[in-house]
Structures are given as C-alpha cells and as structure tokens.
C-alpha cells in the first residue's frame, strides 16, 4: 500500500467540557476510499472537518495531528488561515450533503467552477473556462457548453451534486471529502453519483473520504471503513471484513438496519373492504415561466384503491407527483378532475380531516418550534374536541406518547430538545391522536438515519397491527416499501407505471423503470465482494 495522502492521529475535538471526537486515528491512500459511518451525532462530520481545518464551531478546541502528504507536507491541525486557504479547494476538495444550498444562486456554473482554478492555479480566464467545460463533461452533465451559463436553480438536485463534484475536482486535489453527498438524493441518482465518483477517482487518482450514516452506501464506495460511535472509532477494517465479520455489536446493528431488497413484507390481510378509492385523479398546477403561464400536470389519470388495514406503497423519485397525491387526499390542493373517496365520502369533506391524517417527511420543520410536545399532540384533540378539558387532553397525550414508545416526560419538552427519530415519533403520535382511518406517510422516514428509520418502521408496523390502521406509504426507497406494503404503485412523471401486489411486483417487475429503481438499491454485499 502506498503512503497515505491524509494521515490523522489521535484527533480530538472539545467544545466546552464535552469531548465530541475522542482520539480518532485514520488514514487514506491514493485511489483509495475511506468510509466513515455512524449515526447522527456520532462525530462523523466533526472528525472530517476538524481533520481538514474546516471546523467552524465557536469554542471548539482541536488537538492531535492530521498530515496531508505531498509537496509540501502540511500539518492541518492548528494551521494558519493562510495555509488552509492554500489547501482548501486546491489540494482538498469538498462535496456536502445539500446540493440546494452549497452552490451560490447568483453565479453561473462557469464562475463557480473557475473560481478555485483562478485562485489556486493562476489560470487565465480562457484556460479556466476550457477546464470547466472538461469537468462538466467528466461529471456527465448533458450539453456542458450550454450549461456553463446556467444558474444553479436551472438544474435538478442530482445535476447540482454533479456540479459540486466538478468544483471539488477542479484543481485536481489529492483528497476529496464527501460528507453525505447522496443522502438528499433519490436512489437512482445516488447510484449514478456513486458510479461517477468511483470513475473519477480512477481517472484522477484521488483519495476519497466518504461520510455516510448508511452502511449500504459505504459498502458501494469504500475500501476501508471506520465506524464511529459517540466520537470514538469503534471499528476500523477493510470493507469486506466489516460486512462479513463485524466485531462490534454497534456495527452489527448498522448492518441489520440497512434497508435491503428481499425483506419480508407485512403479514397478509384477508378480504378487507376497500377504504380509499381514487379514480382518474388529475392535478394541475399553473407555473409562471419567463415565456408566460403554463400548466404542469403533476398527477395524470391516477386510479388506485386501498383496502382497510393494508398498506399501499407509493414509489417514485422527486418530481414524480407522489407528494401531490398526498396533498390532494388531505385537501391541500384541489384536483382538476377525478374523484377520491373514503368510505364513499369525498376526501375534501370536512369530516375527513379527522379520518385522514398525515406524517410529513422533515421531522425538524413539521413541529412548531415554539410549542411543547404536549401542545403539538393535543392540537388535533383540541380542534376536534376529542378529549374532555385540559386534564383529559393531558392524559390522552401521555397515552399517545407511550403508544409511540416515548415516556410521558417528553410532554413538556420542545422540539429542538429531541432527536430526529424522537420528533418523528411525536409526529406519528399527533397523526394517530384522532384515531384516523387512513394515515398518509409522506417519506416519513427518509430523512432519518438508517438505524433510526429501522426502529420507526417497526413502530409503524406495530401500530398498524394494534390499531388496524390503513397506510398510504410514500417513499423513494423500494427496499423500505417492500418491507411495509401489501400493494405497490410505481409513479413516474405523474403517471402510474406499475400497480400490483407487492409480492408479484418484487418477484417479477414488469416495467423497465421499476427494474431501474430496484437495481439502484445498494445490495446486501459490498461492491468488492463480487457476485457471491
């Protein structure tokens, strides 16, 4: 093995009297990828940022050593701002999670790519531009010469992340830090980005540090894996060893939490009456474009039924219209045509607000930051006068908290004091407070860590069994859908591509698109393991 490009020894980060990162050592060599895996709050990003001198937290104290090899060899811990400026962008490239906010919305792609070239390489305007063109081509952006003059808002999420990678690689850095680069993307886009980074790594010989909460993704990219738990590296081994012989129970837990194709579905439900009947649903939005108004057909001629006590998995990528379906069912938007009825009553009827409830994707913004957990859960009870007075409501809130696996002490807390998983449990408690017939879960576990997602999915399955709930389960991840659903509807560009029982669909996918979605789910074995 060649000499490491980045060699980190005994890295510690303290904020106040708390140690966030406790003595992590790791190294990554040329053309190698180091995967850092752990749950939120395990110190993954903190480790990578501290090791590269990019940590910008007030009062954080970094000790230890992080040496970037090459000419000149550079100690990054405690380096001066001047030294770091020369290193960042020039010798270390960064790709972050949110492609929506890490590009400057006011600059063209050309400006953003050439910025670091001109700063670090002293390239001329013309030289930088031809390099930018090369890079956009290398990251597989269609029609790169026209794209040079585009602004970030004209690109999709996946395209933006490609541009971020182009920017990171502009100066041919020795090291690329990728911090959850695919977490905000659809599975198919994720698979493309993973392939892209591997390909570029081969061509450029870059060393990569890839941070993710998902061992499935790490298995696809990494050669070496470091498992972080509470700021400590609990396991460090080649990727095959981590997958085949995990030494730590925590690693085992992360492995088991991965959503995998082939999981058992929910127990079958015999002969249940149809609860929700959607026929010929059409939703149209009016979009203002520079060329005038145009109609966007978000959902077209969609029909499906959900039987009482079963789950329909609604699958599709961003922009496929899945959330529009949810909005139509909760009367947040009005359909242009078609009907949607629950037990024969139109879903726009006011009585339906009690019988259909919804859990949203983002556990951070779907709870009012200024209200306690108790107030959030009690809101539907108040609106629908479901409990007697203050005391009745408090008792019911306690029951609901226990139902979702939280203790009654959570009632007096505020959302910011909870973890993502706990917040989502609160959202679920709020949604089931009205004892709804239909619960719509709109990507409700997509922004959670895999291990937390696993436990929340267990909770949802348990609630369905106990309360006889009917779910519309909206997700982009087929593995998760398989685990939850009796029937599956695949949606693309507002149209149903495939609509069948889950067992049939996963055994014999009909549509090419369904097969593409299935292929994009990270497989159980890491990439290096071959076909075994």
């Amino acid at each position, binding site marked *: 093995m060649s000499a490491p490009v980045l060699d980190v020894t005994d890295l510690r980060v303290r904020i106040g009297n708390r140690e966030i990162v406790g003595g992590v050592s790791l190294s990554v060599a040329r053309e190698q990828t180091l995967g850092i895996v752990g749950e939120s709050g395990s110190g993954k990003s903190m480790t990578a940022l501290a090791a590269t001198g990019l940590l910008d937290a007030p009062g954080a104290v970094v000790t230890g050593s992080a040496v970037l090899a090459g000419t000149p060899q550079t100690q990054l811990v405690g380096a001066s701002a001047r030294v770091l400026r020369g290193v960042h962008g020039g010798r270390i490239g960064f790709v972050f999670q949110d492609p929506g906010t890490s590009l400057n919305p006011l600059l063209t792609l050309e400006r953003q790519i050439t910025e670091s070239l001109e700063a670090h390489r002293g390239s001329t305007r013309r030289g930088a531009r031809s390099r930018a063109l090369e890079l956009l081509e290398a990251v597989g952006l269609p029609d790169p010469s026209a794209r040079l003059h585009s602004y970030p808002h004209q690109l999709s999420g996946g395209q933006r992340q490609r541009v971020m990678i182009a920017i990171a690689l502009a100066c041919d850095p020795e090291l690329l830090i990728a911090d959850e680069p695919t977490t905000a993307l659809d599975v198919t886009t994720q698979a493309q980005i993973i392939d892209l980074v591997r390909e570029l790594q081969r061509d450029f010989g870059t060393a990569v540090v890839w941070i993710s909460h998902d061992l499935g993704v790490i298995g696809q990219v990494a050669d070496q894996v470091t498992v972080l738990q509470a700021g400590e590296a609990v396991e460090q081994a080649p990727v095959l060893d981590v997958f085949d012989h995990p030494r730590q129970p925590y690693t085992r837990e992360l492995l088991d939490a991965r959503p995998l194709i082939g999981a058992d579905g929910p127990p079958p439900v015999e002969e249940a009456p149809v609860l929700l009947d959607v026929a010929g649903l059409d939703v149209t939005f009016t979009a203002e474009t520079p060329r005038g108004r145009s109609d966007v057909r978000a959902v077209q001629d969609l029909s499906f039924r959900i039987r009482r006590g079963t789950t329909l998995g609604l699958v599709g990528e961003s922009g496929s219209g899945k959330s529009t379906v949810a909005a139509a069912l*909760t009367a947040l938007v009005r359909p242009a045509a078609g009907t949607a009825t629950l037990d024969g009553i139109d879903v726009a009827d006011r009585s339906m607000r009690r019988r259909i409830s919804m859990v949203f994707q983002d556990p951070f913004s779907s709870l*009012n930051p200024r209200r306690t957990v108790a107030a959030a859960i009690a809101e539907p009870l108040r609106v629908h006068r479901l409990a007697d007075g203050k005391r009745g409501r408090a008792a019911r809130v306690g029951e609901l908290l226990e139902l979702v696996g939280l203790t009654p002490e959570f009632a007096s807390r505020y959302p910011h004091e909870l973890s993502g998983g706990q917040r989502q449990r609160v959202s679920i408690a709020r949604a089931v407070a009205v004892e709804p017939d239909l619960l719509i879960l709109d990507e409700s576990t997509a922004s959670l860590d895999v291990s937390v997602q696993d436990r929340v999915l267990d909770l949802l399955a348990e609630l369905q069994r106990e309360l006889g709930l009917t779910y519309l389960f909206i997700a982009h991840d087929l593995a998760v859908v398989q685990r939850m659903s009796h029937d599956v509807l695949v949606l693309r560009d507002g149209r149903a591509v495939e609509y069948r029982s889950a067992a049939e669909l996963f055994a014999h996918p009909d549509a090419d698109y369904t097969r593409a979605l299935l292929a994009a789910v990270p497989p159980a074995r890491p990439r290096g393991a071959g076909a075994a």
Partner: protein
Amino acid sequence: MNQRVSPWKLLLTNPITALSAAVLVVVAVIVVGAGALAPYGINDIDVPNALQGPGLTHWFGTDELGRDVLSRVLVAIQASMRIAVISVTFAAVVGVAIGLLAGYRGGWLDSVLMRVVDVMFAFPVLLLALAIVAILGPGVTTTTLAIGIVFTPIFARVARASTLSVRTEPYVAVSRTMGTGDGYILGHHVLPNISGPLIVQTSLSLAFATLSEAALSFLGLGIQPPQPSLGRMIFDSQGFVTMAWWMAVFPGAAIFVIVLAFNLLGDGLRDVLDPKQRTLIEARRAGRGR
C-alpha cells in the same frame, strides 16, 4: 434536568438585561407617581433662586425662572412615556393585524394592504404631525396620533415578512391537514413564531417613539407649555447652555437612559422568548454551576 426555569427569571440572569429592566421599573414608578415624587410643583416660580446649580435643595438645579428641574424632568418623563406607550401600542396592534392578514391571505388583499402601508411609510413624521396639527392643533393627542401612524407600517412590514415565511412551514401544513381553522393557526402557530422580531421591534419603537416625542416637543408641536416635556426643556435651555448646563443635561440624560434601556431589554427578551436560545442559556447556567 427538566426542571424548567420561567423565562422571566432567566431574563434577569443577564446582567445587562436586568439593569435595563431595573431602569424601566424606575421609569414605571415615575410614570405612576411623578406628582407625588416631585419635590416641588412644576410651575413653582422662584426668580431669586433662578439658574442655581445642582445642590441639596434642588438636586438637578433650577431653570431661568427658578423652577425645580428634577420635578419638571419627572413629570416630563411621565408625559413622554404615556405618549410613547400609547402610540406604540396603537401601531403594534394595527400594524400586526394588517401584516398578519396580508401575509397569511396573500393575493390581491396583500397587494392592496401593502401599497397602503407603503404610502403611510413614505410620510415623514414631521410633515404628518404638521398636517394633524393643522386639523387638531398642537398637543398630546396630535403627537400620539402622529407617532402611532408613522410606526404602524414598520410593524405591518415586520409582521408580514415573518408571516410569509412561517405560513409555508410544514407544521402549518400539518395543522391544515388536521382541519384546523385559520384563527387557531394564526394564534397558535403563526403569532408565536413571529413574536421574536415583533418584540424586538416593540422595544426599538418605544425607544424611537420617546425620541420622536422629544423632537416634536422641541419644535413646539408636541406637549404644550406650561406642561413640561423633555424636548421642550432642551429647547428652553439653549440660551443658557454656557451658564446652566444642568438645564440641558438632565432632560437629555433622561432621554438617553430610557432609549438605551428599551433597546437592551428588547435584545434580552428576544433571547429568552425563543425556546432554543432559552435551552442554551439554561445549559450555560448549568455549566457555570458545575
């Protein structure tokens, strides 16, 4: 760990905020009891003792007619504060109502309301005061009305801007899917989440209203003599600055201290009313205790 401290107690843990709160308590006492606190009558003319420096009999000295400056400052603070509080309350209630409605409803109502607000905003306070003086004549009502009207658009804009961003928050959508009415959403979701900027705006406005009142009285449009006002007292002191500095300094200092206290209190309030900041302050306190 979950032993909650009330926001009001936390407010006082910040020494600067506590000091401004103490100053404002003193101001409140003055507002309530200026008449009883004043050692002399505000118009007790005592020409033989005119232009005396601060001393034991007259703490803040006397003016050119021998009137006690302390007594006049106390009564002037009372009048000033009354105008500031009434006008800002008016501006806040009307402005927030307009802003909430415009931001929450959107559409043509938003356009109409905000254009009206723009027109109001474009009016200079002095010109507006002059116009009202032309109708009502100079006095306390005129000043209150002018300041109230001028400050309304500021509240409307702050409320509208915050409402626009809160309205699209997922927790509002969640609430809608539950069939919650607009009133409940406005009262329980929107208003608490826009209260931070509004409280800061209120304390800033109280500070500026105090200043505006002083300016209007200085120009003779506000409180009329023989009633004392801080602005008028400074105006009257102009001819005597070189021989009787106390005539200008004490009313000036009163304005300065009140304005500063309102400003600082606003910052402290914003921090303790935000649950996130509150946890941070609590954590910091706990850390210090350990």
